[in-house]
């Protein structure tokens, strides 16, 4: 599977395994389940039955994982380091920047519409990932894809893509 492939791509560190990262998802799951339970305390049983059943099992499973991990830590086989979550470290700034760009993309697309926002997102994101190389090619790809997306989805299929000034202006033209 994808995950397994990825972990085999990374060289295995020797020494205790950092298992802290493995706990992030279960702990989020635990917090979510507790929150979920608070929303169904005072509701008809139909709304409770499945969630209490599944949620209790989930809490049990998470408890088992926490116990397993702490035993391994105690035995010195593992640490609570975050390990592969942010590895390789060199990519942390890039990933965060890409996340920021994605958030900005979603934020601006509702005002700017699909075509122009997508163009700028593709342009900046590709420049970010290419470390500023191949500017011309990236400009061309971004332009072609945003215009192509406009032609296919908005003009030809009239799909409900986010619309903005460009789409409105072109609507009057076509």
């Amino acid at each position: 599977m994808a995950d397994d492939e990825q972990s085999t791509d990374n060289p295995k560190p020797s020494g205790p395994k950092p298992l802290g990262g493995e706990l992030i998802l279960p702990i989020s799951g635990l917090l979510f389940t507790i929150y979920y339970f608070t929303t169904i305390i005072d509701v008809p049983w139909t709304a409770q039955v499945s969630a209490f059943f599944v949620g209790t099992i989930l809490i049990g499973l998470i408890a088992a994982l926490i116990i397993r991990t702490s035993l391994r830590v105690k035995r010195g086989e593992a640490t609570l380091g975050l390990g592969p979550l942010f590895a390789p470290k060199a990519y942390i700034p890039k990933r965060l920047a890409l996340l920021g760009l994605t958030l900005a993309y979603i934020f601006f697309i509702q005002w700017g519409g699909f075509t122009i926002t997508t163009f700028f997102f593709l342009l900046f994101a590709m420049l970010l990932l290419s470390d500023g190389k191949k500017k011309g090619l990236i400009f061309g790809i971004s332009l072609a894809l945003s215009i192509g997306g406009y032609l296919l989805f908005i003009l030809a299929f009239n799909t409900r893509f986010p619309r903005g000034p460009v789409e409105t202006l072109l609507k009057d033209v076509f």
Partner: protein
Amino acid sequence: MEIDWGLFGELFARTFSFWWVILPAILLGLIVGAIPGFSAANTIIILLPMTLAMEPEIGLIFMVALYASSRMGAGIPAILVNIPGTAGAAATPLDGYPMTKQGRAQQALAISFVASVFGGLLTTLIALVAMPWLSQVAYHLHSVEMIVIMLFGISLIATIAAKDTLKGLIAGFFGLMIGYIGADVVYETPRGTFGFLELYDKVPLIPALVGLFAVSEAFAVIEGESILTKRGMAAMQKAGWKETWEGVTMAMSRWWHIIWTSIIGLVIGIVPGAGAAIASFVAYQQSKTFSKTPELYGTGHLDGLVAPESANNGVTSGTLIPLLVIGVPGGATAAIMAVVLQYHGVTVGPDLFENQPELAFGAFTAMAVTYAIMILTVLPLARYMSKITVVSTTYMAPIIISFTLVGAFVPRAYVFDMYLALAFGVIGYVARKTGYHVAAILIGVILGPLLENYFLRALRISEGDVLVIFSSGIGNILWILLIISLFVPMYLDKRRQRQREQALPTTTDC
């Protein structure tokens, strides 16, 4: 209903003469199927003005061809970039994507095309001949029986996560909890919605699908030059026509597998409201259960790709049966077809076979002809489609993010759904990086609410008697089958392990 073979022959000849309708519909269907957020149903709605203007027969052929090809289209990105185009293809990347990473994308595509086409073709023909009997399935699979069928699908969570069962189960049950977000089906009490009205009707599937698979993948792959492994890259650069042919022969060698997994799809498709996602998960789970090499599933195993692809195409013909025979559509696309036909004054239901047999049976001949034409058009494309995998992640990642996020927007036109997809992207990224299975989470999100719906419905009908789940004969047979399919692999596993230990006193870590 008497079977008139002469009529079938005439219908096939006639349908073939409409190749000029089928061909563009196939191309369109492949495209819309491949993009998350689009579906055959939406496309038919968008093209409604055009479909309504056509003769009912041509309109029906067009819709059927679009429907069948979109189902196949959804598997293409699932295999190439780990992004299922629709929930029905959510089980396809389990083995399809590992093949791609090994540089065997072309073979994987060819396998998926062959499995889809033959699964689709076979079930269409079965449907055509056995329609009067098959339509009875809908009368026997009610909530109680559907609960067990759902559990078949959900039990895949356990099988998927063979390497670390505990973590696999956590991912699956976390998914189920996420799937329970939203109002319950009886009293519509909102639960776990964080106050968002947009989550009142459960977690929308496309944003979940897009986030867990596509967005998280895009964030994960940027550390590599391409999504391929080094060996895979080398293999891809050498690839020619031979690889397509290899895929075809590999798939053909599994003809029996195609047959029985597509029949699973057909039967599940007949049940109104069930669907391709359930069918493909159930088929994958069954395929693994009865496999001699279950440990290979998830690593790019042939059978693991054949099963979901032939099953989800089996669903396509299945959903038309209740529509045409009892007038109850099996799924959203079938429902829209009914609307279009009604617009033309054609009322679907049993009378259709008496009054306009050419339309009723014509739907199935159109589907069969579509599959026949499709294999000829799409197979040669496998070689070119697979080239997308060598594109550098510098370009791929931003393209995947932007187009799939917009795809998450399309079904409901809420910007909220784009943020939701990003949130699922973060969950998916953490899951991938820390060894949890995104597919296990997704199975929970998709099947959890369905299971709850059937369960609550059954409980309500029985006025709160929990034992209702064992009240039906067919249901009980399904329960027994479920137990067998859960425990037989465990037993076989143990036995194999014992045999291996006897053969190899020192085990190697694989």
